[in-house]
């Protein structure tokens, strides 16, 4: 608690803001973060309101629930509704909808769907229901992947399999730099992902793109330090990969976690909802774990994603930072957390959900 209080201390926040103001350039600067938790912190503490004019922080595709493609949700519904399995997944995934419905709607139709707060809870479910197949629908980035990797390696339940929908952040960042018209000046990268993966794989951004990159934690001072360090790089005309979350992030990350991921998963191209198929951005179970891969165990192939988002939804623009939620005509009108129209409003980590909850007028 003491640590948290320190990173929310008003006097330290003011000092950080003062430093930011002193270093901010005269021209507009746009910093992108790629983490739903960062967006929650920024929205909750009103960070944007205190930044100098011209310094903006935009949200990238950092919400794993938002970018989970509708065809993966469809597959999970197929398992739950028609294959008689117990489908375990994380809280927000139950609410987000494909074009045919959500897992909560499937539950209302009789599917056995269980919310888990840790992937390891699924082992208990599998042990308690040894006469039934249990599938963990795992959606997340590298942080989730390392936990699931150790679970795949160690879990002995023969009735447990995995529907993997994991994505990797750095290729998505490279994609964003090719989109055009975004004018990103620097990235703040997720503290928990870099705790696992380290900073090495982000070196390509400063070295090949001249793009400042800073790893930041999840308290207001952490965010402000991240912003300050990006601005400092811009002022000094030196792009580098810096660490503003030294209490958790190491240069090489967590070697054991990385080993587990590399041992269990292959890197493949992967669909990101609203964006398309980004190369090298997804994980699938390696061939040696194919018996634990629900897609193979149940002989289910993905259908072609005909429509990705509902007509009129702006999530595809919000998740790449092209527009802000307030620019979406449906935001807080037709689309609310109670009646979400697009995935960004569903998840706690979604940009629209965060903006709605904290009701800031920018």
């Amino acid at each position: 608690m003491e640590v948290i209080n320190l990173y929310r201390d008003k006097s330290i926040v003011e000092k950080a803001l003062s430093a930011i103001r002193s270093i901010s350039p005269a021209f507009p600067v746009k910093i992108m973060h790629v983490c739903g938790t960062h967006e929650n912190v920024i929205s909750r503490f009103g960070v944007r309101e205190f930044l100098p004019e011209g310094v903006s922080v935009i949200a990238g595709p950092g919400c794993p629930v938002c970018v989970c493609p509708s065809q993966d949700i469809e597959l999970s519904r197929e398992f739950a509704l028609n294959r008689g399995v117990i489908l375990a997944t994380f809280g927000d995934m139950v609410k987000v909808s494909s074009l045919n419905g959500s897992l909560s709607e499937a539950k209302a139709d009789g599917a056995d769907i269980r919310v888990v707060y840790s992937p390891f809870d699924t082992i208990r479910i599998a042990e308690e229901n040894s006469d039934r197949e249990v599938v963990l629908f795992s959606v997340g980035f590298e942080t989730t992947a390392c936990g699931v990797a150790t679970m795949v390696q160690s879990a002995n339940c023969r009735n447990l399999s995995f529907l993997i929908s994991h994505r990797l952040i750095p290729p998505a960042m490279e994609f964003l730099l090719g989109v055009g018209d975004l004018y990103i000046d620097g990235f703040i990268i997720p503290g928990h992902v870099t705790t696992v993966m380290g900073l090495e794989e982000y070196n390509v951004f400063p070295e090949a793109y001249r793009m400042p990159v800073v790893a930041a934690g999840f308290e207001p001072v952490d965010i402000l330090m991240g912003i300050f360090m990006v601005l400092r790089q811009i002022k000094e005309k030196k792009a580098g990969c810096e660490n503003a979350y030294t209490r958790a992030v190491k240069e090489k990350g967590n070697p054991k976690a990385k080993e587990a991921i590399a041992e269990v998963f292959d890197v493949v191209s992967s669909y990101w909802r609203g964006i398309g198929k980004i190369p090298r951005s997804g994980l699938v179970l390696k061939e040696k774990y194919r018996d634990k891969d629900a897609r193979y165990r149940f002989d289910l192939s993905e259908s072609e994603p005909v429509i990705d988002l509902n007509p009129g939804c702006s999530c595809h623009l919000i998740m790449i930072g092209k527009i802000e939620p307030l620019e979406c005509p449906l935001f807080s009108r037709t689309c609310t957390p109670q009646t979400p129209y697009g995935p960004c409003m569903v998840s706690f980590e979604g940009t629209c959900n965060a903006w709605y909850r904290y009701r800031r007028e920018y």
Partner: protein
Amino acid sequence: MFNKSCPNPSPDITDLRDWDINILLKTYTPEYPKPMKNCSLCALGPCGFAKDNHGKCGIDKEGLKAREILLDSTIGASGHTSFARRLLDDLISRYGRDCPVDMGEWVRIKTPLITLIFGKSPKTLGEMEEVLSYVERGITHLLSSINYGTEASGEDFISKALHAGMLDSLALEVADISQISALNFPKGASDSPLIQVGLDGNKKKPFILIIGHNSVIGTDIVHILEEKGLDVDIGALCCAASDLSRHYSGARLIGNQADQLDFIKSGIADVIILDAQCIRPDVINLARKAGSLIIATSPETALGLKDFTTHSSEKVIEILSSERAGIIFDKKKAADIAINSAIESYRTKSISNGSTPNSYYGSIRIGRGPVRDSEIRGVAPSIVMGEIPGIVGFFGCPEKDRSDIYKMAEELLKRGYIVATGGCSSIDLAKAGDIFKQHRDTFDSGNLINFGSCVSASHLLGACIKIASVVSHRPIEGNYIEIADYILNRVGAVLVLWGAFTQKAFAGTLGAVRLGIPVILGPRGKGYSLNLSGKRESSVFDARIGDRMNTIPHPSHLIVHARNREEALALISRLCIRHSDTTQGRKIKLRNYMEFYKNARGENPPDLGDLIRTEYDIPDEIKTEILHILHDWTPGWIPDPTLLSDKIRGRVHGSY
């Protein structure tokens, strides 16, 4: 008139001049490889230009050469436009002006080229007429520029030639989308059925052969045969066949235009129906000698024949049995007469068991039409990131040696390129081997897609527009320059017109080039007399930082010709390189380029230093070797590329 949301709808012939002259021609130099000939365009000539550098009218050499380019491109554009107009008129007369533009449920952007250029998407065949009127108006003005005492500037002639190319691409899309909608052609489904190319064995029934492009005459014949339950074979060459098979799977796709002479001489056809374009001028004499009847159906190809359009069908059948050839402009009547004449001719002809000039060649997929939205989402990020190394389109006229195009396609497919084709080139591929059987036709890495006939080449340009739109989220309505800038800098696509020699193919070349898609012409290509070669001293803006980055252009050329397939492969891989390639994408492309270049020239490419932005771009397995040979190389960076100064964010890096 121009607003931000639709900046340049229906541009006039100089409205995109800034893009042509101040951007494209500042980056790519026009070269004219053909020796200059005398000019006899007006009665003051012929002007030899030998003694002075001006013709009698005052035009200089540059202007003269460029004027030839405009003339060729306008002739070509008029070919596709005229075809589109005839086709649209025929379709409207049969299906009505209110026949909807229907591209199926999988295609949201139904008319990418029309939407980009014209500014809005037609909803019916009737609304397509408005688009064609715009095209026809433009061609008139372009032709007018060639008149004595009108345009004189070399640069402006090239700009106008590019405009002709753009209009040509518009006409292609009008034609194909109209026929897809009205005749219910395939609307982008994958796993398109395979059909045989060629004819088998001896003839066993009356045979009608169509040579030309208009699918309506073929479909009219098919409908009559179905209605009356008649057993007559119908086949066609190239585009007529490609498109007929998209409507009727029983149509024989017997070959492409390279087979025309052999099939006419064989006498296998009881009736030959002529439409327009790609028809041999000596077809009448050859067909008469071989015993085939000729029915010409297009005013563009009257061939000195008598016009029997207003005669009764019975009278015409009687006349044709002696005259052996005639014109019938009413296609429905022509269809009826062709069927009856074929049946009668088969019954009485002494060569009733005429043998085919070929046996079955191979198989080809029925032209599938547009690229689906889901396919675009599946490949767009990888194309812009360069990690699918490129989209390569093989279109254009046939070549005698089909093995070149086959081996090129094979090699590219192995390396993960998306290979698309249509028209005579697609049939060349089918004739050379089993390549269509070996590859799926989903628009994805390592797959081979047959779009259809020559007019289906519009779907390749349309796919590039959709990729630009899906990734950048820039609006496409009337937004030609921004989308062309995006495609030029970020969408690794190349057209290969390996056997091209017609004016139409040249117009198609220029339509692609103006949109930012480079074109490689085969050995015949220098007959077109225009290359657009990248200037070494060039630059691109980094839109994010605001700096100019000195660099050779990517693509390195916009029009280039290759002497052989080894050279072509090296060029293809080179011209797919784009500024927006990620480090991984650049590695993949460099690997391909180096291997192809070594195969062609026996050494490493000399321009590696221009293509390696940072060490991250170098394939890992040869990093040491490459760093060793890079002299005076300094690392650069990966820009946010644009050639448009108004896309720059408006500051120079580091300025306060």
